[in-house]
């Protein structure tokens, strides 16, 4: 193998570069959610932030959670939010502004939350990454097994909640006559 003619500067790893891109996407998307003057642009910013979160999961080699994030949050929840915005806020007749006069209060609360979260995260002794999962197969099977053994009650309760929501939606949408 040929020697390089010059010493390479310490480069950031590819993972770090990709992470910066994903973090930018998430932060810009989140800022758009809060700052956009148009409610639909806020919804689009939310979608971008969801994609960024999925990217973080994928960098952390949790592909299943990352793809599920896209499927559930981008595919279902943001579509739902967009529909709700479009159908309720009169979006067809011009832009509506989501601004109100509570930005000062909101800034105080969010910065306090941020400080608490930072303090908590600095206090945790993060465990070293354990040995990598062999080919990532076990994560889905393990997750499924945990759902029907250890976490069976929360799992069933969630299913019940979804059923109640479904029945409620049908009752609300039913013709009153």
């Amino acid at each position: 193998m040929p020697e390089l003619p010059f010493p390479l500067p310490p480069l950031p790893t590819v993972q770090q570069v990709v992470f910066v891109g994903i973090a930018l996407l998430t932060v810009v998307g989140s800022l758009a959610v809060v700052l956009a003057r148009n409610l639909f642009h806020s919804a689009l910013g939310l979608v971008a932030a969801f994609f960024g979160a999925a990217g973080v999961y994928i960098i952390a080699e949790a592909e299943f959670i990352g793809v599920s994030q896209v499927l559930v949050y981008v595919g279902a929840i943001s579509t739902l939010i967009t529909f709700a915005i479009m159908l309720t806020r009169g979006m067809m007749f011009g832009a509506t502004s989501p601004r109100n006069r509570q930005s000062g209060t909101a800034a105080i609360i969010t910065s306090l939350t941020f400080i608490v979260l930072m303090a908590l995260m600095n206090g945790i002794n993060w465990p070293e990454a354990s040995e990598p999962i062999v080919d990532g197969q076990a994560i889905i099977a393990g997750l499924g097994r945990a759902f029907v053994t250890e976490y069976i009650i929360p799992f069933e309760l969630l299913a019940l909640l979804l059923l109640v929501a479904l029945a409620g939606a049908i009752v609300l949408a039913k013709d009153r006559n």
Partner: protein
Amino acid sequence: MNWSDALIQMQYNLGAPQELSWLVQGITYFVGAFILANAALVLALVLIWITRKVISRIQDRIGPNRLGPFGLFQTIADAMKLLSKEDINPTSADTISYQIAPVLSVVGVIMALAVIPFGAGLIGADLNVGVLYLVALGSIGIMAALMAGWGSNNKYALLAGFRVVAQLLSYEIPMVLAMLAPVLLVNTMRMQELAQAQSLFIGPINLGIGWFVFLLPGAFLIYFISALAEGEQTPFDLLEAESELVAGFHIEYSGMKFAMFFLAQFLNSFFLGAIAVALFLGGWQGPFAGQIPLLGPIYFMAKTFFIYVVIQWIKGTFPRMRVDQMMQFAWKVLVPLVLTLILVQMVVMKLPLPGWINSLLVLVANIGVFIAVLNIMGSYFRREMVRTKRSFEPKSLIGTMQPVNTSSGD
């Protein structure tokens, strides 16, 4: 051997330094993605040509035959025409959504190429969540439709956007559940392992015809019908019902931006066929594909093009469904049937029986669902035919008519 490993090895053999392994890998994946994405665009030209030829033959026409051999270059001329058209931006459109939506619709479709197994070791990225990844990509198309519909600032575009999103969301459920059937059989979501599992060994020789469609015909039928709706093909092509609606959510788009939606639709129906091939029709498996690796991609492409031609055949012969009929068919027929199917398969596969009895029970359940879907569709179309004929009869004769003979063929 995997294509990426081979390409990385080739670069090292050409003298790439080991310290730059990140660059070598980056180049490798860039080359792979570049080739695949551009091949998809060239493929679209062929797909449009096939559509026009097949539909022409069904309608007793010849189709494009002037430009190039068999009219093959007609699509290139059409693309040039679209490129040269004026790019109109509506003044009151929402610029961001309006400009991003066409790109996003193509991106969401082309991303599917990453996990399609063209041959042994010939797959972009063999993700361990390959099937789920394909499902998640659908949400990008939904976002694109919403952004185009809303961004155009046109009430017809917005209504069409809502309609398309409702269609895509409804048919995603039976499609995903039908895709679950082969995943449950093999216990993996890797596309490559799914393709490998569809071999059929007699002794040491791999016949390569252990396709899941023989074991899961019901799941395949439901997947195929849902894929027609997901790809916005006839009988579910309410997106571009030229004879009935102005157009879909792309009404305000012109020139190349319109062509992007067009491209996305053609590629999407092809890739949905490719997924059907990978999950149900054996992928790259076929006679002697194990001995001669070159046969793998040929088998895969042949099967996919066959599915594509079948889709065009349906396009040329089926009437279009109304939007309420479409929704009823998804929620009242496909979803309950596929839920039953998956439930039966899950229970059967856990029964402590010999493997072949389990397979037989799954097959029986699938055949039952297959017949049920065909029966419901058949009786529905017969009823509709009687209804349409009656509506053309004089009002004074209503009530005195005998049931119409449905075998007259007109």
